């Protein structure tokens, strides 16, 4: 096996032409970010006229791999060949010039420009003096959209379109370049059944024309509908590349989630008795139109309630409406038996509900400010005297005690948070919410982007908080994490709770994933 690979390499070095078939080849790609080794020697290739699917759990390294391909990130190690030619440095511009188009999850469309302008941006039909031929541009856009079987008014501003329509504009934009390689990052996440059919028809047509397509999706059924080969990534490693017709959904699922779970093994805390009777928070029929429906659950003192699901299951949205960022349309929330309405996170905090957001850099921490300030934001009111001056001695005492319990590694309290490692940053976030002394704490992806050691420590802290009698909700897309942390797990899919399971009863990851996968691939509009 290894030898054949070397033979490949030798052939390549001799300049043998394998380019006719192989559009993209990535070998031994390594990439590290502060605190995480995101890719550990990934190999990936793409041939003419095939759809190569890339699957993996969140955080497996799919997006990182794609961003390396597009030149947004540079690999630490490894070689990349486009059309058999070794590429030293890629930037988005070069990638485009070489005929590689990307359709990202965050679409690169301009909301203030019209559909036509967006489609032809960068390749406008022009006169010699640089005057844009608008007639040609708009007729061309109509043609492309018609060929996609997706007519749109090419004059409307993209900002006025629905997400699904934008997705099709992005596809049209990629097509108008006559790309040889098309990379689609979760194109189906926002499409409904009919639009999805249109997209698949187009993918099939492009395939016949010899275009190579890299297709990333969470919906495994899609892979079996359009994929030729599938590569499974897990923890930054390439687990398997296989022909789609040779594998089953179960096999892929198993490969996706089958990571070692040693770290997540139940610790001593698991036998702590729960106050099953003491319901601290109960939510009844929470609904927000177009996002989630009829979410009901109860949270007890000392319990860790896990929310499992895939990206797009709307778990974050539920929590955000719970703490009043975007209040729900319907539904009731009871805290310790009393009905409450929460209109803002500040009010939620006052009532004792804390939310530790998913994205600590953007929503949680103020990176350039010192650790001490970041810890104290949630308790400034409690720590200040009647004239709003801060009681510095108390603040210092608080920081010292939290520092000790959480074991945050820092040089001084004045150190800016952004200089800490990912794990320690997350601990600072935790410290803030512990300081706030909430009754209910909601953790959204508490260990995203931090390394394994720090993960275990965060888990220990979360359990410790639970044993202190707080009610804890954990949202995580990593199933082993949910399984190890939670006393009870709710599975969400497409804005609904689809199952409630107890890890104690030996639920497997595959079973949970079955509930988490969107049920209807083609639901009605």
């Amino acid at each position, binding site marked *: 096996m290894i030898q054949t690979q070397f033979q490949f390499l030798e052939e390549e070095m001799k300049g043998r032409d394998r380019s006719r078939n192989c559009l993209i080849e990535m070998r031994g790609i390594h990439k590290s970010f502060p605190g995480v080794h995101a890719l550990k020697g990934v190999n990936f290739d793409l041939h003419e006229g095939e759809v190569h699917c890339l699957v993996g759990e969140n955080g497996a390294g799919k997006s990182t791999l794609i961003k390396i391909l*597009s030149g*947004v990130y540079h690999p630490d190690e490894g070689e990349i060949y486009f059309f058999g030619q070794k590429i030293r440095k890629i*930037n*988005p*511009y070069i*990638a*485009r*010039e070489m005929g590689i188009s*990307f359709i990202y999850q965050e679409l*690169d*469309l*301009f909301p*203030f*420009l019209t559909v036509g*302008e967006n489609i032809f*941006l*960068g*390749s*406008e039909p*022009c006169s010699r*003096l*640089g*005057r*844009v031929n*608008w*007639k040609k541009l*708009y*007729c061309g856009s*109509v043609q492309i*959209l*018609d060929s996609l*079987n997706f*007519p*749109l*008014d*090419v*004059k409307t501003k993209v900002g006025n379109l629905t997400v699904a329509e934008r997705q099709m504009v992005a596809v049209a*934009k990629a097509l108008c370049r006559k790309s040889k390689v098309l990379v689609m990052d979760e194109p189906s996440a926002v499409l409904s059944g009919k639009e999805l059919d249109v997209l698949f028809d187009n993918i099939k047509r492009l395939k016949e024309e010899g275009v190579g397509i890299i297709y990333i999706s969470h919906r495994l059924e899609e892979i079996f509908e359009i994929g030729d080969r599938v590569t499974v990534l897990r923890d930054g490693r390439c687990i398997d590349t296989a022909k789609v017709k040779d594998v089953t959904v179960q096999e892929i699922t198993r490969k996706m989630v089958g990571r070692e779970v040693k770290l997540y093994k139940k610790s001593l805390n698991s036998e702590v008795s729960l106050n099953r009777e003491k319901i601290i928070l109960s939510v009844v029929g929470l609904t927000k139109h177009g996002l989630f429906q009829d979410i009901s659950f109860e949270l007890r003192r000392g319990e860790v309630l896990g929310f499992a699901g895939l990206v797009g299951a709307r778990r974050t949205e539920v929590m955000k409406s719970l703490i009043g960022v975007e209040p729900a349309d319907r539904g009731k929330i009871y805290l310790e038996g009393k009905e409450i309405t929460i209109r803002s996170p500040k009010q939620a905090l006052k009532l004792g509900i804390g939310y530790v957001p998913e994205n600590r850099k953007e929503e949680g921490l103020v990176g350039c400010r010192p650790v001490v300030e970041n810890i104290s934001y949630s308790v400034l009111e409690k720590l200040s005297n009647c004239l709003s001056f801060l009681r510095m001695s108390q603040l210092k005492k608080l920081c010292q005690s939290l520092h000790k319990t959480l074991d945050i590694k820092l040089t001084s309290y004045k150190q800016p948070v952004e200089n800490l490692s990912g794990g320690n940053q997350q601990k600072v976030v935790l410290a803030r919410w512990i300081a706030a002394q909430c009754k209910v704490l909601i953790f959204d992806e508490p260990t995203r982007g931090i390394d394994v050691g720090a993960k275990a420590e965060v888990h220990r802290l979360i359990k410790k908080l639970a044993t202190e009698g707080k009610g804890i909700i954990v949202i995580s897309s990593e199933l082993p994490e949910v399984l190890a942390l939670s006393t009870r797990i709710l599975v969400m899919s497409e804005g609904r709770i689809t199952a409630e399971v107890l890890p104690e009863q030996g639920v497997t990851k595959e079973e949970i994933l079955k509930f988490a996968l969107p049920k209807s691939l083609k639901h009605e509009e």
Partner: protein
Amino acid sequence: MKEAPIKIAEREKLVSLRGFKELVLRLSLGLILGGLVIIASFLSPAFLNTKNVLNILSQSSILGCLAIGQTLVILSAGIDLSVGSTLALSSMICALLADYNIVLVFLIALGVGSGFGAVSGVFVQKLRIPPFIATLGMMSVIRGIALVLTWGAPIETRRYVFIAEKNIGVVPLLGIIWISIGLVMHFVLIQTRVGHHLFTIYDEEKSSTSGVDVTKLKIGVYALSGFFASLGGILYISRLFHGYSMAGIGKELDSIAAVLIGGTSLFGGKGSMIGTIIGVIVLGILENLMNLLNVSMYLQSTVRGLVVLLVVYLNIQKTT
């Protein structure tokens, strides 16, 4: 599904309607302008006098030049604070070189202005200094150079007065110069490839992945802003027959105000040159009216500030 919702022939009609649609969108700004004219003509009978109207056009010429360049920079999500200083430096160059060939002098003045503009652009794009800081620095640097040339003393020259005195028909040349430049730039913005790309460079990552040469364009807009500021300096010396190193102080803020009145977003990507032209005229009318009514210079500043706030507030309402 098969047939397109609008047939191609109909779409062609829509293409020609493009300009009209934009005009309608600008209507609210037009209404403000119209309202201002009506109020002004009631308040002061002298206002609608042809001579006075034409006077407003030529008085607005200097600010007009600055604002045209400023529009391009702001569309790229930048800002150019150095235009006032560049204007002063350009007027000094023209005054010092008054004895030389006039075409050569203008080329030097415009070249120096564009050069300094390009330097700002390099600071912003290559060295990643935020536009506000980069051009704040350049503002000081250029002002210093202008001051050093004569140690602050103004130079009088009537060499260039002929430009300001020239009329074509009844219309003063100064007015024609800035308005026609504005219209040309408007055409460039909405009709050419480069102009079209200008609307996207506020978001560098998206724009470059679409294949737009962001670096060239960003440096380009600062160079153009410097160019137009120098032109403003030439118009300044022709109107006031002095090269003055302290000229144009505060003009950079006026130019930004005009651009904002014209509906261009400070965050880039949205706006129009026609809007800026109207913005300049609105400020010109306001000043003219207050002069006619003998409003004190000190109070004028307050009134102008309030108008800027009001119009920008209306622009925000329009978009949300």
